[in-house]
């Protein structure tokens, strides 16, 4: 069986600067996959390249076996990819309900849309109580919920989540991740999750990729990544102690 999303050797540039230097990855239907990495590793750029917000110079992006690279983002979204952008990016002057309605833009099946409203409110009860409030007045966590709900309203088969934990309290992060897992399990939506919060991301994801300066440097099932010394030290913040009991600040990463 071929993968739902297949990214092959993609290279993306910002002017002369190469932001992604030949990345390949695959997401199977119904799977949660995470891409971890520090600031500036190119994670968001990767998601934007997939959803068509940025054109790539080389490589291919295949979704359900059809090439979608360098298409306009609305075309890509219509194929079944829902992008939850970094920093939520809700429509601030519109109400929660209107935001969700926009999420269902381009869908003809009105009854199904109505049912999906209920599904979203069931996942995020907070949104239901605030449905006539302006999105700009919501808290960060509620805006994140709204952004996820809005993408869900498009009934995607793959959701791209760009740092959903950004700026949220740990408890709220947990809630959001639980709901991501539920949406994945109950609705069968595959998820490509970009995160800096490696611990939370590896907990929910089946498979993980680690990105550094535009390349993928490691890729393995989550449990394996969690057990790896490099990941522990550089992403999970656990340090192994040296012989004299001091931290080895200068330990080299094995992939360099």
């Amino acid at each position: 069986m071929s993968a739902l999303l297949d990214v092959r050797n993609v290279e993306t540039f910002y002017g002369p600067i190469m932001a992604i230097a030949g990345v390949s990855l695959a997401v199977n239907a119904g799977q949660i996959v995470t891409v971890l990495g520090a600031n500036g590793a190119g994670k968001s750029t990767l998601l934007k390249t997939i959803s068509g917000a940025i054109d790539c110079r080389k490589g291919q992006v295949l979704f359900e076996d059809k090439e979608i690279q360098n298409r306009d983002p609305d075309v890509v979204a219509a194929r079944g990819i829902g992008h939850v952008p970094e920093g939520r990016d809700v429509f601030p002057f519109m109400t929660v309900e209107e935001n969700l309605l926009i999420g269902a833009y381009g869908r003809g099946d009105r009854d199904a849309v109505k049912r999906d409203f209920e599904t979203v409110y069931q996942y995020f009860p907070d949104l239901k109580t605030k449905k006539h409030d302006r999105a700009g007045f919501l808290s960060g966590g509620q805006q994140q919920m709204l952004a996820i709900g809005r993408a869900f309203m498009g009934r995607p088969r793959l959701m791209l989540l760009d740092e959903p934990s950004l700026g949220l309290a740990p408890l709220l992060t947990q809630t959001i991740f639980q709901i991501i897992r539920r949406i994945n399990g109950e609705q069968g939506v595959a998820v490509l999750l970009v995160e800096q919060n490696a611990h939370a991301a590896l907990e929910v994801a089946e498979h993980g990729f680690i990105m550094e300066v535009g390349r993928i440097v490691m890729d393995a099932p989550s449990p394996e990544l969690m057990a790896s010394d490099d990941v522990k030290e550089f992403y999970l913040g656990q340090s192994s102690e040296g012989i004299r009991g001091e931290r080895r600040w200068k330990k080299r990463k094995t992939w360099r």
Partner: protein
Amino acid sequence: METSDVIQLALIGISQGCGYALVAIGFVFIYRATEIINFAHGELMMLGAFMVLTFAQIWGLNFWLSACLGILSLGVFGYLLDAVVMRRIVGESQAIIFILTVAIALMLRSLAGIIWGWSPRSLDVPFMQDVQIGGIVLGMDRIAIILGTILLCALLYWFFSRTRTGLAIQASSQSQLAAYYSRIPVKRLISVVWAIAAMVAAVAGLMMAPVTQVDTGMSAFGIKAFAGAVVGGFGSIPGALLGCLLIGLAEPFLDFFFPAFKGVYAYIIMLVVLFIRPEGLIPQTFAKKV
């Protein structure tokens, strides 16, 4: 000055302000959707008046039919103006956009002069007769402007807050990328915004035609409308309406009492407001929806 004179001047002022407002709304729509300030908007209004004139007086069609055709043709023109020209300069600096829109304005004005001649023409409209209400004499054309503006604003409000396309346009102007991610064909909708703005300008041109005559100088109207939009706080629809009404209302009185600066009061008001309240009367921030 008697009370009836005051009322008469006020009504003339309000109708003038409504005319400005129709043009200013177009400015604001385009600005909110694309951050382009379209200095050719007065020219679109002029073009609208000329188109109606062509249909009605050169082709000899029925007035209302010509009005519809004129407005529609401006809609098509506005759509194409964006799809063919303006779309290409998205993301360029404000200076480039400014020069481009001014250049388009000059070209449209010359083109209109070449096609329709440089001397003013009058457009016969069915609402020309004067009405007398208790000593106040008022042209039907003035009343038509006020009623037309109210109707059009209500229609636009309904469109932007109730219809799916309207909501999608709002969404695109609030966050273009998020709109794209929600499957909204942003580029096409921006062209639709241009079409709407051009059609509203055409309505303004059509309704102001009996008052001002139709000629290439009509486009100067656009600059006063721009002043009105600035007074109200650029980017806010209620602000633009208020600013334009204010300017329209103040003009005849100031012209009457201090005729020395006749014709430039719109700009004086704009300067004064900018000095006292640089953000405008109703700034764009969380104040409003459409």
